[in-house]
Each structure stands twice: as C-alpha cells, then as structure tokens.
C-alpha cells in the first residue's frame, strides 16, 4: 500500500510543517492581486534546490492548493480576484459582500473549495496509478501528438486569439531550442554568442516571464487605495442545511473541475467558467446569477479547486502553467515527470498525492481561521512587497550558476513577458511551449527512428490518430463557433429588418 505509507510519512513533523507553510503562503499570495501561485512557486524553486525532493514537491503542491483557494478572499471582500481562477467568484461573491453577507459568501466559498479538493483528490488517488500504467503504453508518436494537443488546447482557451496563442507557444519552443541539441550535442541557434551556449535555463525564463513582467505591469499601473466592503463576517460557519442545499452543485462542479484539470493545457480559470455557466444553465433562476447568487460561488470555487488535483493526474503533460512549473521542479530535482514517476520514484508520486489531501484539510482550517488577517495582508502596498520580491528573484537566479548573466537573462525575459502581455499575447502558452518543446522534439525524433523515418504511424496508430483528430477539432471549433454565431446574428438582423415591413 504505497499510498498508506505515503500518508504515514506525510504525517511526520517535517512534511506537515512544509505542507502547512505551503498552504499558508499559497493562500496569502493567492489573496494578493497581481501575485499568484505560479509566481510564488517559480520564486521558491531555487530554495527547493537545497531541500529533499519529496519535501520540496510537497511544499510546491501545497502552495498550489492554497493559492487557488486564497483568491476567493479578495474576490469577495475587495472585488479583486487574487488569481484568475477567482474571477467567477467575484460575480456573486462581491455583490453578497455589498449586501452585508461577506461572511456567508466566504464560508460558502471555503466549503466549496474544500469539497472540490476532496472530490478531485479521490479521482487523483484512484485514477493516477491505472492512468500512469496506461500512459506507459504510449509510444513516441502518441506522446508527440499529446504534446501537440496540449499546445493547441492552451492556445485555444488562452486570452486573445488562437493564432496569438499559437504564436507565443512557438516562441516558447524557439527559446527552448537555443543551446546544445540533446541528441547530437550540436550547438543550435547560438549565433556565436557564448552566453547562449548553455541555452536558457528554466528558472530565469520563468521568473522573468511571470514575476518580473508582472512587476513591470503593476508599477505602470496606479496603485489605488484598497478598501474592504461588506466586511462584517456574520453567519460565518456553514450549516448542515448549506451542505444539503449546495452539496449536489458542489459535487457536480467538482467533477467538471476535475475533468477539465485532467485535460492537458487547461487550467482552473476555465474550470470555474465552465462550472459557473453549467450551474447557471441548470438553475431555475439564472437571472439571479451575478447579483449575489450563492450557487455561483459554490460552482466557481468547487471547480477551480477540483482542477488542481485533476491537473496532477499524471499524463506527463502539464494541465496549466503551474503544472508546467511543477514539471520543471521535477526536472530540476533530476526526476522524470509523467507516468514513469510512479515506477521510478513512487515516494514522490504518492507523497504528492498524500500531501494534496492534507493540504486541502489545512487550507479549509486556515481559511476559516484566518480570513480577516489574510484579507488585510492583501491590502499591503507594493512598495513593501515588490523590492523584496526582486531581490529574491536575483538571489534565486544567481544561485543557479553563480553568474550575473542568468540574472540579466531573467530581466530580458521580464521585459519580453511584459511586451507580450501589452501586445495582448497570453504568456501561459509561452511557458508550455518552452517546457514541452524538448519533449515534443525527443518523441518526434524517437518516432522517426523507430518507424524508419515514416510519419504514417501518426495516423495509423489509433491513440495518436485520436489525439490528432481531437487537436483538429479543438483548433477548428472556435472558427466554426464564430461562423455559426455570425450566421445567427445575420439571420436575427434579417428578421428584425423584415418585421417593420410586415407591420
């Protein structure tokens, strides 16, 4: 029973301390608008160099769980979603706070987050080992087409157009290709620049694109004084009646979140949108959504938390940007991400699963206990936060190679990340492109060697054909949808134009 052993290990003082720390930091960072789990996990990666791999992964996964939940506090109290996954929580959470029901909104959000975490954890614990076994049967072309699907999927659902998402993903792939070719050792795309010879390491690129670019963006915006609204925390603890009333919605939304989390390339923000929309369409009073409807908060929060564990289900392809960074963390710790983790390092795989459950319990306890101080932390001025964050980034990146050149690389990627954000390009696909390019290239080259240079198995092998067809459907669906909408709009305009004539 490796999972049982993992629980025994997790309940020791050191893992419990790091899980507690991770959840607490995650909640706080998730609550602060502009910061987020991805930023904190990237920031802490260098610190984990010096930690035991199991503890490091437990810390990072706990931050993930905490950060997705923390966003709801500021979403409800301040109308500022701390994380993108809390955007849908704002719609009903803040109106409830304005109506003086902040405590109720928070308690429902925390309860829903907990339910989402538990439901999806059951899937994580039950499905991970068999899915890992199944994924081990994938050949190089199956893995290559799965990577393609992940890239197209994140480009499809990311902010902006599909073409922009794909462009930025390809840019990420280009950045990953600089340096020595993994198969032949030939230097690629260095253009004679010695500093490019080692390629661009994960950490400076990640910290630049996520942390520095966000700081640039925020410094350019005027800092507005933040005031809490609807701050009276009455009716705080959920009752048995709440469980009966909102239980089915929470479970349904958790299932939606889990399966969206499993999909490569799709994260918790999309899970919240889909679950919210589904709940609204099932509701007898859809018109109340957006005005302080409790079911809206339950749907958004249970689904976004559920997507966290769903995304950890090991296909080896990241389900979100944080997953991509977690995969990077595994690589940094010399571990093989994906299904092989269960075979090669079961203590990590099962340790992460056990930590995810404990983190969910701690998240609920910490959130119920510390809503008020956490909401206050979220109003801390950036003049106090950002300088320290920059110094942490500098130290972290410098420690990677004992060289300031990595720090300059981080700054350059920070500026690039900022430019892309300003140009309306989502940075999520960039990171996935950067992380997945080596995997895509390795699998494509292995496949070509295995099948004597033939690409035909891409369409003759059922699983890779399935992934290709799914990719095509995902890529073309937005175009088809736009065409259908345009046609419907033209028809309704035509009808409206015809009406006066008849009268």
């Amino acid at each position: 029973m490796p999972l049982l052993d993992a629980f025994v290990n997790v309940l020791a003082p050191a893992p419990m301390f790091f899980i507690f720390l991770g959840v607490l930091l995650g909640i706080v960072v998730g609550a602060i608008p502009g910061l987020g789990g991805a930023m904190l996990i990237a920031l802490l990666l260098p610190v984990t160099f010096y930690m035991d791999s199991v503890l490091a992964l437990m810390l990072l996964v706990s931050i993930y769980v905490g950060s997705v939940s923390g966003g709801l506090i500021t979403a409800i109290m301040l109308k500022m979603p701390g994380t993108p996954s809390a955007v849908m929580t704002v719609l009903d959470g803040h109106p409830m706070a304005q109506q003086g029901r902040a405590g109720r909104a928070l308690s429902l959000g925390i309860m829903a987050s907990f339910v989402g975490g538990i439901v999806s954890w059951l899937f994580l614990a039950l499905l991970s080992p068999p899915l890992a076994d199944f994924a081990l049967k994938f050949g190089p072309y199956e893995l290559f087409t799965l990577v393609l699907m992940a890239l197209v999927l994140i480009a499809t659902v990311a902010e902006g157009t599909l073409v922009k998402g794909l462009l930025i993903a390809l840019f990420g792939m280009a950045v990953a290709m600089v340096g020595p070719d993994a198969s032949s050792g030939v230097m690629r795309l260095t253009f004679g620049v010695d500093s490019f010879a080692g390629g661009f390491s994960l950490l400076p690129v990640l910290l630049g694109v996520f942390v520095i670019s966000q700081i640039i963006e925020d410094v350019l915006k005027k800092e507005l004084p933040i005031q809490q609204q609807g701050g009276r925390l009455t009716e705080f603890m959920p009752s048995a009646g709440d469980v009966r009333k909102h239980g089915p919605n929470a479970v349904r939304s958790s299932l939606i979140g889990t399966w969206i989390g499993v999909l490569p390339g799709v994260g918790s923000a999309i899970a919240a949108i889909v679950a919210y929309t589904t709940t609204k369409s099932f509701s007898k009073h859809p018109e109340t959504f957006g005005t302080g409807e409790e079911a809206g908060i339950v749907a958004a929060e249970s689904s976004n938390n559920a997507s966290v564990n769903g995304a950890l289900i090991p296909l080896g392809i990241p389900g979100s940007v944080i997953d991509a960074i977690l995969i990077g963390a595994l690589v940094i710790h010399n571990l093989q991400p994906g299904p092989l983790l269960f075979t090669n390092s079961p203590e990590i795989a099962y340790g992460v699963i056990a930590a995810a459950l404990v983190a969910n319990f701690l998240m609920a306890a910490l959130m119920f206990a510390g809503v008020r101080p956490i909401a206050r932390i979220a109003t801390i001025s950036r003049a106090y936060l950002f300088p320290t964050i920059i110094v942490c980034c500098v130290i972290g990146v410098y420690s990677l190679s004992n060289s300031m050149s990595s720090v300059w690389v981080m700054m350059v990627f920070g500026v690039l990340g900022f430019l892309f954000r300003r140009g309306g390009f989502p940075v999520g696909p960039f990171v996935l492109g950067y992380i997945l390019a080596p995997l895509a290239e390795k699998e494509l080259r292995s496949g070509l060697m295995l099948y004597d240079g033939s690409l035909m198995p891409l369409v003759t092998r059922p699983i890779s054909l399935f992934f290709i067809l799914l990719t095509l459907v995902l890529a073309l669906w937005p175009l088809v949808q736009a065409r259908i909408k345009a046609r419907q709009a033209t028809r309704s305009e035509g009808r409206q134009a015809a009406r006066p004539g008849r009268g």
Partner: protein
Amino acid sequence: MNFLTKDRGGEAICLLLLLATGVALLVGAAALPEPMFDPLGPAGLPRYVGYLLLVLLALRLVSLFRESRAAPAAEADAASPEARRPAGAGTGEGPQRLRFALVALITLAYLTALTVGGLSFTWLTLAFLAALGAAMSDLSARKLIIVGVIAAVMSFALTYTFTDVLSVVLPE
C-alpha cells in the same frame, strides 16, 4: 503597415519580434549540419517552428488587415481628438511612467553594481530595497519609515538565510 500602428503599438512590436524569431530560426537551422543519427536532425524542429511562425504571422497580419477594413467607423473614431489622446491620459499614467522609469533606473543600477562587483551584497541590497521602496511609495513619512525598516530587516535576513542557512554564494 498603417493598420498596425493604430491602437496596436504593443502588438506591432510583438509581431516584429516574432518575425525576427522566425527568420532567426530559419537562418540558424540553415547553418546546422545535416542529420546524422535520425531523419530529423538538429535543424528539423527549428526549421518547422520557423516556417510555422511565419505562416501564423502572415495569418495574423491578414486578420488585422481585414479587421481594419471591416471597421472603418471605428477607425474614424480612433482618429477623433479624444481617441488620439494617449491611453491612460488623465488617469494618472503619466506620473506612473515617470515612476516606472525611476524604478527601472534603480534596478539597473543595482544589477550593474552586482555585476561589476566590489560592493557588499548586504549594504547594496539595503540601499536598493530602500530606494526602490521609496520610488514605489507615495513618499509619505509613514510609508518611508516602513520601507526603511523593511529594507534593513530584509537585506540582513536574506543574506543570513541564503548564505548561512542555505549555503548559497551571493554576488559580491
């Protein structure tokens, strides 16, 4: 390229950057040796990614061109004196840009000093944290005091944590 310059300065820069990347990929791939161990070789993926980048860029330009032609009314609006006002004008973005320039300058000075070396990391970091915190604050006495305290505590705490606890060699 008129359609790229109206309200799309940020995107235009990104598209140029992506164009340069696509061209660099193709030029870099052309300079690589022929495949030795596998049919794709080291130049294969860079070449495919380069071509794909250029094709998608062309698609984006076409769609931008179509958008600009399909919305002549919006273009006219954009040409109105109100629309020509820089984004954020009147909303305090001007002073923010000045603040940003100051923040960038302080950060560049800090990184340059670390690169050149010769100064103590702790004291340099203390000065950086204090200067940057002040530049980002509203310069009220209360905030400046807090920034000073944070700078003093964090510079020594970070140095201690990274050097003595985590055994990281810090820039000097």
